[in-house]
């Protein structure tokens, strides 16, 4: 699967909002943000998913796209080019 149900994976915005909410009236500093929400919580799980869903495979320590991953990536890159969204998504 390329997509998730909204419930399956934690949305970064949801995690951020809940983290700020839990800090209560004291608020949350930028440093605390980075301590609580980092690559281990936002990126690494999605990299593992890319492998388990066969969008990519590991060759040594390098992630390489499978044909399926290549087709999906091309589809989104082409679409974004058509609508002239030069800024990368994500």
């Amino acid at each position, binding site marked *: 699967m*390329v*997509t998730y149900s*909204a*419930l*399956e*994976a*934690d*949305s*970064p*915005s*949801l*995690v*951020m*909002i*809940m983290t*700020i*909410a839990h*800090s209560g*009236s*004291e*608020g*949350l*500093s*930028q440093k605390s*943000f*980075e301590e609580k*929400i*980092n*690559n281990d*919580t*936002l*990126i*690494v*799980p*999605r*990299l593992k*998913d*890319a492998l388990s869903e066969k*969008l*990519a495979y590991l060759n040594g*320590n*390098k*992630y*390489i*796209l499978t044909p399926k*991953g290549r087709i*999906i*990536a*091309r589809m*989104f*890159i082409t*679409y*974004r080019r*058509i*609508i*002239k*969204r030069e800024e*990368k*998504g*994500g």
Partner: protein
Amino acid sequence: MTYLHAFSSIIALSVNVLAQVYYCRFISNKHLLKSLFFGFFCGVLGFSIVEIYYMLQSQLPILQNISSVVINMASYSALGYCYFHFVNLGETARRIRMISELKTANSGLSAQQILERYNAREIIEKRLGRLLKSNQVIYRNGRYYIGKPFMLVASKIIVFLKLFILGKKSEFEE
């Protein structure tokens, strides 16, 4: 004529996509959500034209016509919803961004190289920017606070649904 009616939701979706792409290319590519609303509305117009034309030509009883319009409109709305999520995936999905980065690097990337191109800091900056812009989060004296409650309420509902359906509040809980 019957075929036109049968495919009215597909025709409307095509109008939706073309109008949304037109909006982004020739009006503004900065307001993606607006372009999606514009596209959907144009699709509804296309849908209405097809359905009204069909009704005027059709010999069927009015109730039967109305019921088929309702079904076709529901189909179009569902297709429009799927298109919205396709666009949204390209805009916000982390995995799509990662595989896009991998696609541009022909010989593949290590985890470290991926993190150099796309990382938690960028994700936080982008989303925090949106939350601050919409006043869902406010920044005061170097700290972040909850502003308007909409996103907080939505987040709490999602957490409740996670707990109810999946039995856990977060993907990181065992």
